């Protein structure tokens, strides 16, 4: 093993759902502090790839390492490994029967065994970070989608993860609420968080990402700095995808 471990390392990852081959041999790494955006058409396997990083999906073949620990090893302590990996979902997945504060403290208390006072202090710090400290006593149903997603980010951050996974975090939001969430994510990136983001927000990818990965048909087609992958894509598939995303009213049907 390399002496300096990557934040994420994936080797020859395959994933089948029945006969459907969603991932067909993915190799890639994320270095500590990097922000990597994964783009690609729907069904390209980008969400599945992300979900394989914290093993919400069990890969069919291949290896996944997070900070040098092999998560695909059969004797790994997955729960312990997942504590280091925060995950933000498209549908927020806040716990509806708990207040915002309880959402952000529950895992700290039950998993990290932090005391009540400490957990609440950390929760309030993180709610402050996402601009929602005044919503601590609300229930998720009382919040807008953008607010719910920011709480979900605070909930993940309260576990002090070294890596954050974002699975299309703004896709379920009304357009005017997208900006709040992206601003929080940009701030997080500037603070040096390692981030792996599946997104359709090209402006975010272009401005915030260190690297952009374009996936199609279960493989990585292009991987490089945003100026290269989005600015001057080499492959025809990337070009046609970007044309459709950046100029949807002039797409060839």
């Amino acid at each position, binding site marked *: 093993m390399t002496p300096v471990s990557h934040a994420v390392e994936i080797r020859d990852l395959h994933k089948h759902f029945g006969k459907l081959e969603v991932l067909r041999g993915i190799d890639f790494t994320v270095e500590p502090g990097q922000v990597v955006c994964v783009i690609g058409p729907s069904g390209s396997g980008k969400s599945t790839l992300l979900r394989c990083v*914290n093993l*919400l999906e069990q890969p069919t073949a291949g290896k996944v390492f997070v900070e040098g620990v092999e998560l695909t090893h059969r004797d790994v302590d997955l*729960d*312990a490994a*997942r*504590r280091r*990996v*925060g*995950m933000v*979902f498209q*549908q927020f*997945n*806040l*716990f*509806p*029967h708990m207040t915002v504060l309880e959402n952000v403290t*529950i*895992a700290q208390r*039950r*998993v*990290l065994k932090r005391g009540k006072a400490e957990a609440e202090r950390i929760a309030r710090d993180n709610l402050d970070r996402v601009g929602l400290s005044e919503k601590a006593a609300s229930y998720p*149903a009382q919040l807008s989608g953008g607010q719910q997603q920011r709480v*979900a980010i605070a*909930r*993940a951050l309260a*576990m002090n993860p070294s890596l954050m996974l974002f699975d299309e975090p703004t896709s379920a939001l009304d357009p005017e609420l997208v900006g709040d969430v992206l601003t929080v994510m940009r701030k997080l990136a500037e603070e040096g968080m390692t981030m792996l983001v599946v997104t359709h927000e090209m402006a975010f990818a272009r401005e915030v990402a260190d690297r952009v990965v374009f996936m199609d048909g279960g493989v990585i087609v292009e991987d490089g700095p945003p100026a290269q992958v989005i600015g001057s894509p080499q492959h025809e598939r990337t070009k046609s995808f970007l044309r459709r995303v950046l100029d949807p009213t002039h797409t060839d049907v």
Partner: protein
Amino acid sequence: MTDQPIKAEPAGPGGTPPAGTGLSPRQRQQISRAVQYVVLVAAAVAAVLFVDWASLAQNFAKAEVAEQALPELFTIALKNTLIYSVGGFFFAFLFGLILALMRLSPVRPYRWLAIAYIEIFRGLPALLIFLMILFLPLALPGFEVPGDLYGQGILGLTIVGAAYMAETLRAGLQAVPKGQMEAARSLGMSYGRSMTTIIIPQAVRIVIPPTTNQFVSLLKDSSLVLFLGVSGEYVELTKFGNDLASTHANATPILVVGVTYLLVTIPLGYLATRLEKRQGKGR
């Protein structure tokens, strides 16, 4: 008859009425309604004329006999009915939850066991279960249900109730969105921890309305402890009413006991409806 009407009738606002009747749908509905009322009134008149009201009141609503039922109706009979049904409900809920979790377990033998239990005990009459409990000491010499007759009654209701409760709770557990488990697991919670802190609390909220109805049905089934041969301090409402009716050779206690059941079940029914409505709004 030809397709072409020979004499053009004046068309109503709804267009030409169907041939033959000459009546609009509203008129036909009125006539039908009038016939229904006539039948109802006739039935009521017949009841007033032909039923021997004096004898009925004498047999079903005799005040002196009704007074005999007090205060034991509440201090013993209702109290015991509530002990049997609340106890049965408590254990049926616990056991049902375990069965539901087994039913959804990735471990195949657990699933088989749960399915077998549910299929068997959902398909048997509750009375049969109570008769089996009655013969339990013969089948297992030396075995005794703890808690005496209370224990036996509660055991019977638990066996029956758990099978239904398991299916209700399974539906509740499955109604919790998959993302909840994923969110909990991605925060580093174990499967068991995710179940107890995230999934089960939400599932229980979802099943509160159907569970309230199940309590009502359990309360009614508690009358079957009659067949365990309860007596004295163990009698519940039905047995109590039956005994008193035999003593006085009068049916009044049956009516009194019936009303007592309704005093509990009707408010519970309303409660279930209200909880259901509130749940529809929430979330």
